[in-house]
């Protein structure tokens, strides 16, 4: 059955037809958006969207990206159109795009639509949405077959890692800190799912939600064997944390904001398998030598 799976999936992929325009669809802001023709000049204001478009071999269609898009390297040469909090609407309009792909947050959609530009909000947040939004983007860009192939490729790369981590004899308990408030991640959040697939047991129960602000006491009480998102010196200096298993054994990994690992883990895009691989290597170094 496992051997058959790629064949079946490939069959499904080749069944994708060319997109017919005008194409009307509901975006992630709940707006009905109609595309009159295949977009040729695209502005992306999310790093994950930029990466997905390039993974679909559409890098050339990008005429502008947000300040944070930096992968693949070629996009850093494109005009920058600001960030979430300081978008440069004029710069976007000046680039004469026929499509701007925005996030769910901010109010870009209103002002750009008023300027007569087609705006589509595509904003993957959960693990499964990475795949479904890739397919949506593929359909929008008339690259449905490529999008399906990309999703299959990603799922295959992930399965290769998961096969090792799933059968790990001992799964370390882990605590992942998003920021020092401290906010952490629940097992159903994007990072939470990756953590589980990397073969760790999250000390945070799903009932607390995806991004709970927790009491540091909980971490002391749960005594995780692995801590991510804090540097060792900080963890050691926190009251009562010096006795936590992870701190004693030194299995504490900092994830600096803006670092390559941080970018992988905070961008729900086509480099998802790489994010999982990086995480799995931290959780189970013995499996990925």
């Amino acid at each position, binding site marked *: 059955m496992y051997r058959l799976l790629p064949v079946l999936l490939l069959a499904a992929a080749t069944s994708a037809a060319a997109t017919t325009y005008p194409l009307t669809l509901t975006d992630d802001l709940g707006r009905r958006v109609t595309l009159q023709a295949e977009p040729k000049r695209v502005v992306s204001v999310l790093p994950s969207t930029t990466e997905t478009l390039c993974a679909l071999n559409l890098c050339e269609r990008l005429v502008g990206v947000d300040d*944070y898009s930096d992968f693949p390297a070629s996009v850093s040469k494109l005009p920058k159109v600001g*960030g979430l909090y300081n978008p440069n609407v004029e710069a976007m309009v000046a680039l004469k795009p026929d499509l701007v792909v925005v996030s769910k947050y901010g109010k870009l959609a209103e002002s750009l639509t008023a300027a007569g530009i087609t705006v589509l909000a595509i904003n993957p947040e959960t693990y499964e949405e990475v795949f479904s939004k890739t397919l949506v983007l593929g359909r929008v860009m008339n690259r449905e077959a490529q999008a399906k192939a990309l999703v299959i490729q990603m799922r295959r790369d992930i399965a290769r890692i998961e096969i090792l981590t799933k059968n790990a004899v001992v799964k370390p308990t882990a605590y992942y800190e998003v*920021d*020092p408030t401290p906010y952490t991640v629940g097992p159903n959040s994007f990072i939470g799912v990756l953590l589980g697939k990397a073969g760790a047991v999250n000390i945070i129960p799903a009932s607390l939600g995806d991004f709970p602000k*927790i009491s540091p006491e*909980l971490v002391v009480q749960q005594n995780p064997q692995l801590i991510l998102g804090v540097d060792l010196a900080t963890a050691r200096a926190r*009251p009562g944390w010096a006795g936590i298993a992870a701190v004693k054994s030194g299995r504490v990994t900092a994830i600096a904001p803006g670092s390559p690992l941080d970018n992988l883990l905070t961008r729900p895009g086509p480099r998802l398998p790489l994010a999982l691989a990086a995480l799995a290597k931290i959780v189970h170094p013995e499996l990925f030598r």
Partner: protein
Amino acid sequence: MSAIESAALPRPRAGFRASGRTLLLLALVLLAALLALGLGSVNIAPAETLRAVWHGLSGQPLAGSEVIVWQLRFPRVALGLLVGASLALCGGAYQGVFRNPLADPYLMGVASGAGLGATLAVVLGWNTALVPLASLAGALLSVSLSLWLARVGRSLPPIRLILSGVVVGSIMTAISTYLLLLTEDRVRQVFSFTLGNLAFGGWHQVLVVLPYALVGGACLLLLARALNMLQLGDLTARSLGLPVERLRLLIIVAASLVTAAAVSYAGIIGFVGLMTPHLVRRLWGPDYRVLLPVSALAGGGLLVLSDLLARTLTRPTELPVGVVTTLLGGPFFLYLLRQSRDE
């Protein structure tokens, strides 16, 4: 003259009645502190809690949940008492020195200065241990700037002080906001500081904040009688032989030091400093010799109680302590306000 005396000095009987209330408040604060030591993401029996405190105090090895009581909760409670007391005391002193009911400890730009210091440290990627120091420097710089801008010759007119404090604060906030926009990915790290947070309060923080609170607090308490006289207006106070300008400067400097230390190690906790002195004024009267120490006690208690609720209401998750403080103190204050209107 008799009118002045009765305004400045409380009658002995009122003082006697107030002391009963003060004892009750003290008992409530101690009760809140004890509860805060025992309750949390795990509940610990009172006997075990006290044993943990005893083991911690006597330096014996800590077992099991004793670590949580002694190393996490005790310093957190102590820091809560200290910060709450500092903010309430300074709020009371500021309201007195400016004769303005809206004055709070952040009036001279301490909070926005501290916020800018912390933002700079985070944006520049400094070690986390340096964030409070940068914040302290920012707070003191902000106050010095406000004082310098407000100065007219040798005097410090309250209106100019308030205006320059507000403007310096706005400028500092604008710079912080701009820096944050440049480095969006660190926004949350800065927010976790500026929103006020006792979660990682440890013995280290307590020991750093304590000397500021003690020295500055003692200074403010010694000036309570002068604050009483200042309520009669600058002219009258001056005619009573009070060095009004020097006094104002001294109180602002002392209160700013205390506030800056508290803010730098616990973040910007709102409401306690504004409302606690008002609450105390309604229940204990306007004599600053009573108002200031009782405000400190009540402020400490309010913050400890709020922090206890913040970490137990939705445990093991935590609510922001500032939200609880406001939701707890706000309605109580409004109730007192209505009561006094009915009288």
